[in-house]
């Protein structure tokens, strides 16, 4: 009798790419909860709308490419991209902003480059940067965090949030209360000492941006969970945070008006922790080896600091990540591990020399 023929190995570790992505989604929850508590339901509306769009577009592309959509949707990578872009967008962003962003993320950055695994750039960050360059006004309208201003109206609930993003759904226009982000205020400041700035502006909290501290701590918690679950290794995120902190330390200037901000301020403000644990760790667009990921993360950390301090855009995570995505193949080339039984560390392509 002929028996079943299967090649080795006959065992594999439980879990698949889909389960990796589901862990990532799970780990995003604390951050999302804190954001909702601070900014109201705008974040949730963003997320749901972005996920619907992403799934729809992914299914459409798979149909066009004549692949079974369900099999590919199951890897949940489209959902991760959608959620990451959605939390990076300002709450109460207009509906069309999300459409454009997800369109660029899923259709251009992911599928025009060949789909899952082939994209050299992080899709969510491509979508974000396209929006930031094209629609700077809409992209910088951040809702004021609850409690930052005395007598502030309560944050928007689910229905008002929906009406804010989809104005045509409601007869009376709804607007969220917005204000400049702490990073903006910090950059525009050139007269006050850091201590005075913290005391005088409602944007600042104990050591980071008001409320942003909590957002960052929540994303940090999610990241710690992923590290614990060994979804990724510590190399890229920790090296990014260390590099950012080190840069801040060097340029802190003991809190003068020319200060770039303390390490704590940079670590717990803006998209730092979201970037470190959910963007920098995206395996597809990062360097591959552990050593490579150390360089990759450090590069992002340094760039974030430089762009935040000297660039024209308020936050820098997206630009820094995209720039290092460019560099990833180069890093891979120079950080090949030494194969067992070989003497040389360096890339083997170079041994051969030019022809």
């Amino acid at each position, binding site marked *: 009798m002929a*028996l079943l023929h299967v090649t080795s190995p006959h065992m594999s570790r439980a879990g*698949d*790419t889909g389960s990796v992505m589901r862990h990532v989604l799970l780990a995003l929850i604390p951050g999302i909860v804190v954001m909702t508590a601070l900014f109201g339901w705008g974040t949730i509306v963003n997320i749901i709308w972005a996920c619907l769009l992403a799934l729809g577009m992914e299914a459409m592309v798979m149909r066009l490419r004549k692949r079974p959509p369900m099999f590919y949707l199951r890897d949940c990578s489209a959902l991760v991209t959608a959620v990451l872009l959605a939390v990076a967008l300002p709450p109460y962003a207009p509906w069309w902003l999300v459409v454009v962003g997800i369109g660029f993320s899923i259709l251009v950055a992911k599928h025009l480059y060949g789909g899952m695994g082939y994209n050299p750039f992080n899709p969510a960050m491509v979508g974000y940067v396209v929006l930031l360059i094209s629609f700077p006004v809409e992209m910088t309208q951040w809702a004021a965090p609850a409690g930052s201003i005395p007598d502030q109206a309560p944050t928007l609930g689910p229905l008002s949030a929906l009406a804010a993003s989809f104005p045509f759904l409601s007869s009376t226009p709804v607007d969220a209360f917005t204000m400049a982000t702490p990073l903006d205020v910090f950059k525009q400041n050139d007269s006050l000492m850091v201590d005075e700035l913290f005391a005088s502006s409602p944007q600042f909290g104990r050591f980071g941006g008001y409320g942003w501290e909590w957002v960052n701590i929540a994303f940090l918690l999610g990241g710690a969970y992923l590290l614990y679950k060994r979804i990724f290794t510590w190399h890229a995120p920790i090296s990014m945070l260390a590099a950012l902190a080190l840069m801040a330390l060097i340029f802190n200037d003991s809190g003068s008006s020319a200060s770039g901000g303390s390490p704590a301020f940079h670590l717990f403000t803006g998209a730092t922790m979201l970037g470190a644990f959910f963007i920098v760790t995206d395996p*597809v667009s990062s360097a591959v*080896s552990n050593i490579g990921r150390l360089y990759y993360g450090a590069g992002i950390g340094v760039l974030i600091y430089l762009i935040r301090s000297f660039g024209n855009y308020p936050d820098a995570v997206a630009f820094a990540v995209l720039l290092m995505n460019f560099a990833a193949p180069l890093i891979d080339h120079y950080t090949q591990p030494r*194969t067992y039984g070989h003497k040389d560390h360096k890339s083997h392509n170079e041994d051969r020399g030019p022809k």
Partner: protein
Amino acid sequence: MNAPHKKGQTWDIHGGIHPPENKTQSLGKPIMQAAVPAQLILPLSQSIGAPAEPCVEPGEHVLKGQLIAQAAGFVSVPLHAPSSGRVTAIEDRPIAHSSGMSAPCIVIDTDGEDRWGERTPIADYTAVERTELINHIRNAGIAGMGGAGFPTAVKLNPPADKPITTLIINATECEPYITADHALILERAGDILQGVDVLTHLLQPARILIGLEDNKPDAAAALRDSLRDRPYQVIEFPTKYPSGGEKQLIEILTGKQVPSGGLPADLGIVCQNIGTCYAIKRAVVDGEPLISRITTLTGNALKTLGNTEVLLGTTMQTLLEAHGWQPTPQSRLIMGGPMMGFTVHSANVPIVKTTNCLLAPTAEELPPPHLAQACIRCGMCAEACPASLLPQQLYWYSRAREYEQLEAHNIADCIECGACSYVCPSNIPLVQYYRASKAELRERAEEHIKAEHSRQRFEFRQERLEAAEREKEAKKAARKAAAAKRAAQKEASTPDGDNSAATAKQAEIEAAVARAKAKKVGIGQPAHSDDNEVGN
């Protein structure tokens, strides 16, 4: 690097994985004895190297232990009758091979008497010549029992310029499910150590290290209890697959890496599997050639699990039926372990010297592989690779058929352990790609040899013609000078000079072909050494 290390010190290797061990189900019972089957089928090729040459005729009666096929060359092992009976055929039969191929076998119908022929123990092996002792081991038909089956005697003849300083006995048995070595140690540690004594006498190493994973403390204790005053070190190290790979074990125990394309002997090391030591003891002390082995029978599709001592040539069907196996076309039967073993196409194939395990899993136990998803470059494969390769790069290059890049990324150093496939979250059958690429590379190397050969043949012919032409010219000149008219007749006979040039050229070609062949073997890497298959 050469500083003396602490006794019993071990080193960690890169990568590795911790699959569920599944070893307990086949342990705990004494080693069983499989019945003598009605028919034995003995493939002439059971190890690396040339197939043996039959020295019996169909119709001939043979006794247990009698030589039935002779070694054909240096890297080749002879074959003996596992039981008494009549040779009924020498013909192609299906053998245990991943491709389901057939190969020449000697078929013996047993007579049920199981009558021994002459046994030739060596009373005092320290008193005989070294070469005689090695020949005795060679004539006993012993090949590495761990997996790949490298002829044991070859390893006992290290080149004179590379003295052996360390003898490593591999008792790691790191693959899940397999417990053949473990059971052997528990029951016959004393015999195993006697085999190690023989190796020690032959190689005179400065130190003898017996390495095993820390998941079998009872085996380590059994070995230590039997040591008495022998200076051997029994070294336990953390369980991790594939620490039983020869190269990996050497690094764990010595901190050194076998150079790529080289042999352990380059480091002054010889590595032998524990089952091989046992076979050596049987050959030297008891005078019995290798005609049986311990095989693990495991997997939930069997009713009784355990280790059994089985005659070589028994078919898997016969053996497993006795353990309640009822196969369906959906059944998987794996020779070896779940990581490196291969599925046989039919159970009607014989047990051979390297069959350390038969795994008959149910579909729930080892579910069929999932559909592969896209590589997400997560790097888990590179984390797991014990050879420090970049499996995902090898995968891209394999798919793109970029052979130069594959070679540049050292695909030849892949030991096909399957750790990368095991961890891949996208369920990509990575090793399958590497096997295909390696086969392709081998083929290309062979083609290259052929092309080289015909090019040389062409050049050789070209040169001969030119030489003949020159000769003619010279003759013409000579003829003119001599003004002899009869010279025309001489020209027809072949001049001497031409011949010797041809011989020299021929020798050159042969040397080139030999060189190319040597290279070719290099691509097939694991072929080099016995215990490279991690099964042991």
